């Protein structure tokens, strides 16, 4: 049969389909076996255009650099200068993003507070309310005001150094929170006023306002309750950055937190994480444009998040016009999340260090994304805080290194003119020239 006449027909090599890849097939088998979508933590894992597609030019004859250790390169940033009596002053433009107590253990939240405070920056609560550990160890704490309003109360509101109204998250623009039963321990349940052990789905919209006009009234209410003292941020997913930034400014926000689709989440449907939203690289310029069109750039601060990993990312975000960045996933890795020292245990969970994302199951070998008291004991909040501080310092030093090389005495003096893009896509998204040209798609005065 495998012959034509006397000629044997050779086999072609087995060939996998690019469409039906092993990954996709395993998704299909999983769906068929369980009847429910895949839920996981983390951000988009697919390959996206990122800040890695941009390069700094550095100094040359036309621009001269600053001396590495002698000439100052400032890193401070003040957030909330528009309306707040007490704006937040940060030593570095890298903040810790909102991650919920519930998703993270109490000691992990404590470590975030310790590390951020030692580095002179702020940390942020999350869905689930403010814990004493976190308030106590954070010199500057941003209190999130979320659709679920778990644990929301005027006393904690007044203890906060800033309030962040969460409209959306980059990992799930238009989605609500999720915390599965395994993590609804007695303490988490009590803070959220829910039965222990249930799968908690929190709302995707705020219960008492919809749309930009209501948001303005809501901001007024929060300011009245807190006596106009603290800044009010509005956090949006990077879905429609130009319009969302415009509307948030109009509604009276002091700062905009803009989160791209690489941004992590504690638990969301995989299909949501991978297919909704825009990459962080693509959302900065439209948001900055909105700020500039309203004459509010640097008056209303822009905090960018979603896949920020090192000082180069920080420098690029700032060069494109952001005032600061926020980190979630990277901070968890600094604390010890996905560390290969736990490889054997990751293997037992059917995964490997670096790929572990079933945070919602609460079995984290590193004791960070769990409410299991035994696993939690593995994590030392003092050591964790020290590691986070080190990492924040390194990121800052890296960003300063780049800024000095570009001749800037403040990170905020970095500008789009310091950058080129490696790909046409990145050139279009960041609106900086393709390397070796003076062109990017959509550049005013060019035909395409």
């Amino acid at each position: 049969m495998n012959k034509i006449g006397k000629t044997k027909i050779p086999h072609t090599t087995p060939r996998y389909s690019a469409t039906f890849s092993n990954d996709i097939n395993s998704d299909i088998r999983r769906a068929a076996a369980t009847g429910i979508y895949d839920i996981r933590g983390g951000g988009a894992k697919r390959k996206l255009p990122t800040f890695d597609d941009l390069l700094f030019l550095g100094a040359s004859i036309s621009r001269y650099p600053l001396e590495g250790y002698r000439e100052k390169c400032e890193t401070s940033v003040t957030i909330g200068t528009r309306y707040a009596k007490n704006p937040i002053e940060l030593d570095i433009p890298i903040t810790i993003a909102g991650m919920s107590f519930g998703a993270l253990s109490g000691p992990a939240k404590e470590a975030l507070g310790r590390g951020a405070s030692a580095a002179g920056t702020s940390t942020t609560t999350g869905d689930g309310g403010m814990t004493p550990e976190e308030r106590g160890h954070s010199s500057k704490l941003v209190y999130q005001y979320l659709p679920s309003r778990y644990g929301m109360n005027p006393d904690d509101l007044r203890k906060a150094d800033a309030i962040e109204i969460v409209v959306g998250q980059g990992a799930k623009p238009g989605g609500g929170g999720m915390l599965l039963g395994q993590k609804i321990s007695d303490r988490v349940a009590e803070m959220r006023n829910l039965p222990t052990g249930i799968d908690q789905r929190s709302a995707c919209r705020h219960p008492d306002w919809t749309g930009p006009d209501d948001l303005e009234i809501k901001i007024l209410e929060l300011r009245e309750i807190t006596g106009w003292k603290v800044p009010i941020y509005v956090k949006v997913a990077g879905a429609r950055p130009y319009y969302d930034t415009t509307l948030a400014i109009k509604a009276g926000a002091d700062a905009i937190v803009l989160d791209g689709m690489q941004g992590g989440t504690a638990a969301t449907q995989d299909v949501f994480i991978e297919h909704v939203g825009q990459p962080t690289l693509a959302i900065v310029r439209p948001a900055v444009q909105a700020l500039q069109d309203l004459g509010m750039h640097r008056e209303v601060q822009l905090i960018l998040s979603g896949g920020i990993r090192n000082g180069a990312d920080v420098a690029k975000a700032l060069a494109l016009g952001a005032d600061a960045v926020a980190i979630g996933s990277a901070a968890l890795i600094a604390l010890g999340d996905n560390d290969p020292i736990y490889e054997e245990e990751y293997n037992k969970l059917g995964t490997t260090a670096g790929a572990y994302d079933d945070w919602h199951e609460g079995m984290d070998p590193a004791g960070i994304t769990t409410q299991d008291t035994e696993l939690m004991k593995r994590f030392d909040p003092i050591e964790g805080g020290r590691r986070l501080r080190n990492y924040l310092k390194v990121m800052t030093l890296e960003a300063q290194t780049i800024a000095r090389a570009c001749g800037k005495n403040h990170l905020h003096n970095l500008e789009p003119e310091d950058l080129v893009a490696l790909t046409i896509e990145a050139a279009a998204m960041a609106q900086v020239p393709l390397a070796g040209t003076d062109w990017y798609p959509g550049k005013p005065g060019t035909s395409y």
Partner: protein
Amino acid sequence: MLEFDLQENGLRKLNSALHDQKENSNQTVWKVTNPKGSHSIAVGIDAPIEVNIEGSTGYYCGGMNKQANINVKGSVGPGVAENMMSGKVVIDGDASQYAGATGHGGLLVIKGNASSRCGISMKGINIVVHGNIGHMSAFMAQSGNLVVCGDAGDALGDSLYEAKLFVRGKVKSLGADCEKKEMRPEHLELLEQLLSDAECDAKPEEFTRYGSARKLYNFNIDNSDAY
């Protein structure tokens, strides 16, 4: 009694004066005139004082209230007593959407009707409505009690957690996972108390109780139509 003309003195002055009230203040009764539908009147109070508002208000009247008794001699806009912690808020007229949203404690009484999403995401507050309530009321309500002396609109108690709902009149439709429940003696007792606190002469026996069927508490493919 201290009288405060809102149009003349402005919102910021009113709220900061109310926030400055100490536990043992002897200035316990306030009268606010000319509210004229302003938003955020008497929000964030934390003192056992009485505030009487002589007219109708805009959004979030009495928001996040602790301890205070707030009486509105008129109707209120959206989100009255949102996230209330304790105290009592009484509305003589009607209430717009999201009345008592996310409230943790205290008592909200609406002598007229309440619009849609009354008691949305409530977390321990008690709400008594003398008239009717609109659609999607008690959506994702977590705990506390919602008492409705009139009728309830569509999708009452959708995705309900542990809040108890009592309706005297008709319910247009129940939301996902909300079902009729047996009225036991402890519920009648609770109702009796709430109705008397709300100065309502309805009889506990005239009400039907609704609560969570608890079928959506853990993900199950057989319930996928409800998600």
